[in-house]
């Protein structure tokens, strides 16, 4: 009579989303950070739109990467601190099911929110409207891949007192390929060429990470929960 994996995932997804929306300020923080970081670049470089447009894909992607990295720390932290992570681990559901549901919920709340916000930032950086579709699609794939890598990093460092800096040091090198493919897909779209090549690589990276990360993240959690 026990509960199937999909039903459990739905339940955890519901739990995570209702928890996130109980603290809307924590949802907004990474988004505002995304805006602030992208505003730094025109100030640092120049208000000249033509110059900004060349830099736009890189700026957008680095800002998106850093803002989702900010919220990854909270993936397991809250549950680990109040002891509910143990309850989830002992629920009889496999740890991977729990990790998948929590990571997807985290992505919806952080990555997807960044994607929805990205047109705002893109216009500020002079990215033409017809490049928006590719940009948003590549950003969606990129932030999802990052959430999976973040789940591994968070699983490894959640038990540590000063784990959040180490989390970024662990996740960023692993995230460099997705940055390369994502930024160049957006860059190609702006230049009018077809971004297909980069998008295919990004998509394959996303599928690869989505299949392996739950195993690695649950193994990491098992070490932390000892």
């Amino acid at each position, binding site marked *: 009579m026990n*509960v199937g994996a999909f039903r459990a995932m739905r*339940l955890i997804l519901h739990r995570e989303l209702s*928890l996130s929306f109980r*603290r809307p300020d924590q949802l907004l923080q990474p988004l505002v950070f995304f805006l602030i970081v992208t505003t730094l670049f025109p100030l640092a470089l120049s208000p000249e739109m033509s110059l900004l447009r060349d830099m736009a894909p890189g700026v957008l992607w680095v800002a998106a990467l850093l803002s989702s990295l900010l919220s990854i720390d909270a993936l397991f932290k809250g549950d680990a601190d109040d002891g*509910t992570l143990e309850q989830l*681990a*002992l629920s009889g559901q*496999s740890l991977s099911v729990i990790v998948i549901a929590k990571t997807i919920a985290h992505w919806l709340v952080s990555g997807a929110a960044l994607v929805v916000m990205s047109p705002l930032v893109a216009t500020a950086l002079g990215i033409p409207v017809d490049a928006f579709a590719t940009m948003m699609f590549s950003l969606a794939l990129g932030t999802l891949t990052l959430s999976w890598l973040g789940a591994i990093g968070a699983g490894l460092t959640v038990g540590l007192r000063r784990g959040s800096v180490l989390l970024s040091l662990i996740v960023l090198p692993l995230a460099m390929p997705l940055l390369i493919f994502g930024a160049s897909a957006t860059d190609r779209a702006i230049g009018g060429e077809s971004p297909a090549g980069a998008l295919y690589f990004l998509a394959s990276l996303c599928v690869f990470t989505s299949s392996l990360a739950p195993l690695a993240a649950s193994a990491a959690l098992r070490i932390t929960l000892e």
Partner: protein
Amino acid sequence: MNADAAALTVDQVHVWRGDRHVLRALSFGVDAGQLLHIWGPNGTGKTTLLRVVCGLLRPEQGQVAWGGRPIERIRSEYQAAMAYASHEAALKGDLTALENLRYAVGLKRRVRDDELRATLERTGIGAGADLPARVLSAGQRRRVAMARVLAMRAAVWLLDEPFTNLDVGGSALMSRMLEEHVDQGGLALVVAHHELELNRPIRRLELSA
């Protein structure tokens, strides 16, 4: 209420915490309908033992078996039939008592809210069911954790200091719950540094320093 619990056996378990040899060649068995009181001063590995038995901590040597099968191989099945309560009440502060139960128990069995409300009522949290858990007192939070254990209808109970923060009424309720669980063929390991007032036979395991 819950199916007869298969026997739980711990066999030659050794655990080191850094350089400290916390558990040395520990062996015991608990059958269905029995309650084992794990007793001993602080720092003698009571909680470590419970974490080994529930499958969170893997011992360096030795084995824990449930119904004769090692728990590593039947991890999901074993943990689905178990209710573990750590020494802190482990509730999400932003969720109400009812929601905490819905998400925790819902992972183990299909359960409707009205049954959860009834269980909360029974442990004295009827009024507070819809309050965020963070506003509840420590004793009330312990009663919500008690309701969670009850609602899971688990065959195996692993409780770490379940009487902490409970007032006289709460402790009596906890004792009644344990008696009921054992009578129905359930199995329980209770870590407590004080006497347990249960009018049932209690086996005791003393952990020395």
